[in-house]
């Protein structure tokens, strides 16, 4: 028992000696300084301490990831929500883009570019057709409208590489819708339409049919082409030889063309 107590007291002495040594060291280092000893220890142990410190920091960062797992999850959820919002915005943008594309197409259709090709007329002896020196090489296609200014000449019926045939209104196969306007008031079109009708070529000339019986069409009124095949208003000529059969439901007339087709030198072909 006594031996054990002595052993315990011996162990306790380490505390007193440590305290004493600590005070001595503090005094010695504080008063005189132990620079040499410090440098020697620093030279050996600072690199070791630095390396282990770096390893400890890295391990701490690794564990810090687990500590911040909740924050990461929250951040992930926030990012997910932000991603959904962006996706919704993107789809909205896509809808707008498609709408924009559709509108662009629509505008392009509404403003079709029209090109006029100048053609010189050639003689062939046929009174119902006209030959011109421009063909598919110039972009002319079958069905294109031929005019001189705002006056209708005909429709392209046949196209070669360097020449085309224009079907004149006097041709038997030419059937076009027209409107009859009061002479002298060409500017106010909608207000002065007297009647609509159809023109067709015949041996007697360009015949106008289907003029309304109750219309106030008289000789000298102006006839305008208003046909989807032509695409636009073109002047054709004047009403002449208006006749009305009491038994019929419409009036007929003939057209006196504005242009003399035999003397045409140059025409314009409207191509799209």
């Amino acid at each position, binding site marked *: 028992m006594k031996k054990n107590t002595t052993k315990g007291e011996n*162990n306790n*002495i380490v505390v007193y000696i440590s305290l004493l040594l*600590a005070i001595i060291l503090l005094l010695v*280092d504080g008063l005189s300084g132990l620079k040499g000893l410090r440098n020697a220890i620093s030279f050996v142990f600072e690199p070791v301490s630095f390396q*282990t410190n770096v390893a400890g920091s890295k391990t*701490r960062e690794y564990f810090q990831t687990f500590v911040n797992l909740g924050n990461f999850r929250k951040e992930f959820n926030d990012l997910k929500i932000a991603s959904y919002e962006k996706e919704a915005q993107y789809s909205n943008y896509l809808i707008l883009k498609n709408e924009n594309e559709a509108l662009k197409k629509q505008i392009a259709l509404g403003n079709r570019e029209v090109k006029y090709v100048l053609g010189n007329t050639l003689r062939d002896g046929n009174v119902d057709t006209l030959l011109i020196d421009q063909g598919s090489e110039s972009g002319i296609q079958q069905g294109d409208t031929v005019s001189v200014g705002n006056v209708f000449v005909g429709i392209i019926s046949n196209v070669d590489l360097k020449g085309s045939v224009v079907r004149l209104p006097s041709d038997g196969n030419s059937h076009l819708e027209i409107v009859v306007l009061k002479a002298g008031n060409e500017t106010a079109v909608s207000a002065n339409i007297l009647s609509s009708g159809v023109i067709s070529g015949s041996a007697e000339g360009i015949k106008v049919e289907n003029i309304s019986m109750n219309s106030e069409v008289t000789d000298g009124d102006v006839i305008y082409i208003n046909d989807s095949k032509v695409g636009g208003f073109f002047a054709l000529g004047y009403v002449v030889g208006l006749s009305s059969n009491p038994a019929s439901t419409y009036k007929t007339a003939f057209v006196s063309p504005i242009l003399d087709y035999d003397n045409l030198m140059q025409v314009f072909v409207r191509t799209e």
Partner: protein
Amino acid sequence: MEVLYLFLTCFVAIFLESFLVALGNFRFFFLLNISLFRKVNWKFLLTFSLISSIILDVIYHYVLGTNLLLVAIPLLLMLGISLVVPLDYNLPGYSVKFLCIFVYYLLLAFVPGLILTGNWASITGLMVGGMVLKAVISMVFCVAFDLIWSRLRKREEGTKLRSL
């Protein structure tokens, strides 16, 4: 052989001290001191404490003797309390150790600065909370160390009996 043990222990202590300070500001040197107290020869413990504390003072840029003082004061406190509460491997014994470790961390917060600059460091509630947490974790280490130590001792005793 003892000299080799001593240098090895010093090296391991410094290595783990630096690592654990970077990891969670744990002080392994004091834990080793409090765990080895009354378990190993006092000369061995004194030499180990002296060498390791001087090295750590240099590493932490403290005045030489600071670490030794920080270790000695809580151990002195433990000796004082041991006059009333026996330092056995039970709850009262570990409570005393817990208190000593807490005091060590408390001293660590202001003593080095006080010695170096003469200024008292301010201690916040958060810091005290951190000290308690570190003391609790350190206690877990102490318990584990004591368990391992007792098993090793038993094995040694068993070997001695067989050899006898």
